[in-house]
């Protein structure tokens, strides 16, 4: 994770994609019932090489290329999971998950309920969200739809360590889970525990402590949040940055405690704001601690063009976060002490 800092002890420096591959590899070694399914996950190793080496080690029975048939890919994953296996189904881009929502939501997420607890479908759907020059139908972030599905968990790591830890946790879950990564995370590297470790789902992480405003984000937007926090610090505003990591369940406790302390909540996301993650985070925090100053930062309400200029105009950046924080703090901003104590607890490479 730690940018240009030297690696921490007992960690190895891995690219995001390597962290995923390592987690899946370890879980496949540990559990012969873990199966990887997806388009071009075999010899090709996945669009971002995040499955590199698995085909060579585990062969075509356990690392399966599929046709372009997202509905069946998810449905097969659900059936395989219900039949005692632990499939990881790779849906290349999150936009295409739309084609597989029926089996995931209507069968997978409801199976435990409708069988009165006798069956379950512990599959992991791994998919890549976000904008990076791929245009209107390959850039969407639809995790907010998933968050409201009872029976379905959702995680979205922002760095290689969490990519590793959460993938391992995901592959040990007892029900269906969607693991969302992001195109812009793959080029990044970070420190990943050397020893086998399993992350905890449902736990947010404070990546930077602050006192004036609480800023939440997940996935790639965590980096934008950290950049914004740094810039705000330069302007004398102390911003606490929380990486949600797990979207369902959501760690309201951690966020609410922070917001309680800072008195202001800013949420940041790349997916559309309307009925989005930020609206939910704000609502839950307010339910916990009462009304508070809150604002949301997200993309413009428009499709994401593959045109890099238009993409950049739509997707939120640190500048917009900074502006939103200042607007939110309003009067208090003027009074903000200069030398707020800033502790970088990690995160963001």
């Amino acid at each position, binding site marked *: 994770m730690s940018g240009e800092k030297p690696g921490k002890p007992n960690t190895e420096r891995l690219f995001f994609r390597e962290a995923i591959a390592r987690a899946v590899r370890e879980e496949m070694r540990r559990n012969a019932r873990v199966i990887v399914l997806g388009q071009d996950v075999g010899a090709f190793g996945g669009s971002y090489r995040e499955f590199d080496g698995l085909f060579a080690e585990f062969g075509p029975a356990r690392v399966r290329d599929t046709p372009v048939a997202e*509905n*069946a890919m998810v449905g097969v994953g659900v*059936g395989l999971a219900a*039949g005692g*296996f632990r*499939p990881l189904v790779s849906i290349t881009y999150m936009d295409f998950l739309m084609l597989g929502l029926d089996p995931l939501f209507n069968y997978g997420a409801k199976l435990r*309920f409708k*069988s*009165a607890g006798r069956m379950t479908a512990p599959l992991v759907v791994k998919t890549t969200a976000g904008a990076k020059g791929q245009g209107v139908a390959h850039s969407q972030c639809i995790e907010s739809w998933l968050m409201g599905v009872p029976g379905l968990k959702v995680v979205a790591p922002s760095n290689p360590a969490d990519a590793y830890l959460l993938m391992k946790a995901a592959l040990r879950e007892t029900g269906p889970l969607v693991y969302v990564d992001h195109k812009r995370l793959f080029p990044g590297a970070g420190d990943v525990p050397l020893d086998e470790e399993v992350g905890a789902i449902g736990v947010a992480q404070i990546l930077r402590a602050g006192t004036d405003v609480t800023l939440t984000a997940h996935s790639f937007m965590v980096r934008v949040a950290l950049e914004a926090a740094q810039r705000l610090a330069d302007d004398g505003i102390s911003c606490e940055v929380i990486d949600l990591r797990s979207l369902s369940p959501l760690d309201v406790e951690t966020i609410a405690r922070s917001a309680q302390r800072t008195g202001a909540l800013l949420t940041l996301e790349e997916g559309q704001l309307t009925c989005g993650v930020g609206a939910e985070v704000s609502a839950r925090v307010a339910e916990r601690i009462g009304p508070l100053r809150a604002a949301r930062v997200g993309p413009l309400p428009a499709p994401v063009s593959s045109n890099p200029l238009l993409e950049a105009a739509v997707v939120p950046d640190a500048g917009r976060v900074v502006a939103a924080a200042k607007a939110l703090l309003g009067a208090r901003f003027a009074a903000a002490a200069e030398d707020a104590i800033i502790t970088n607890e990690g995160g963001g490479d």
Partner: protein
Amino acid sequence: MTPRQQLRTMKLIRAFETALAVRRDHGFQLLSSGEEAVAVGLCAALGAADQLLTGGRSIGFALARGLDPQRLLAELLGKSTGLNGGVAGRGHVNDAASGFFGAHAVVGGNLTIAAGLALARQLAGEKSIVAVAFGDGACGSGALHEALNLAAIWRLPLVFVCNDNQLSVSTPRKYALAPAHLADLARPYGIPARTVDGMDVEAVADAAREAIETVRSGRGPAFMECLSLRFASHSTTARETRSKPELEAIRARCPIRAFEAKLIARGDLDPAQVTDLDLAIAAEIAAAAVFADASAPPRLDEALANVW
């Protein structure tokens, strides 16, 4: 199943559904009168370790698979003693322990699940197979083709059983689906496919045995289309769209009466035995009703149980 057991099961289904249809305390149900031979013929050929998935019209299949009529009725009436504690109900009842993996009321929504389950069996090196029943309506869905292709390319141990009652709610199959025979849909994938008379339980059982044998031997999936007739409207609360004479002609082709007559003609059954059988079934159904009616509804906290 012996021929007599087959007859018995068909009668059980008919009696069960008839008794259910007159009750007013279950919202509505999707019944299968007229289609009993499909369910019984198929299940006569399935082994105990095999799994069956169905669409929403599932009562016949569930009973043919040997599920306890008492617990099935309790489930359909929403009682805690039901197979799924009264939570699943119509369209979603399941009992995997008995080889009835479950109903699923989303048309076509069981097909890819079945393929995944078949893959699980293949990967586990099991000899048991998976059968998935679906209607003609499901043949318009893309999910069928995605599942057929995957089943073929991976040689999955999966039997596709199309219960072609030639209707989807009010829509005649011929206005909705272009193929001359729905079995043709499997052919491009190289999947062996047959169309059989779904009103003849022995024809269905023979075709099912043949299909299942292919599948069990590891040669990949098979497809069978069973031409059947739905005697009642789409559901117990749906409007009937066919004319009286049309319905009369359809109901004249009763698969149960035909099979009974055949067994009698063949000397495998005598009319006195029929009376005994009918009485025994009536008693069984009455007992199921007593059981279900005496059962408690689920506790309200079941609404939040087994979600995560």
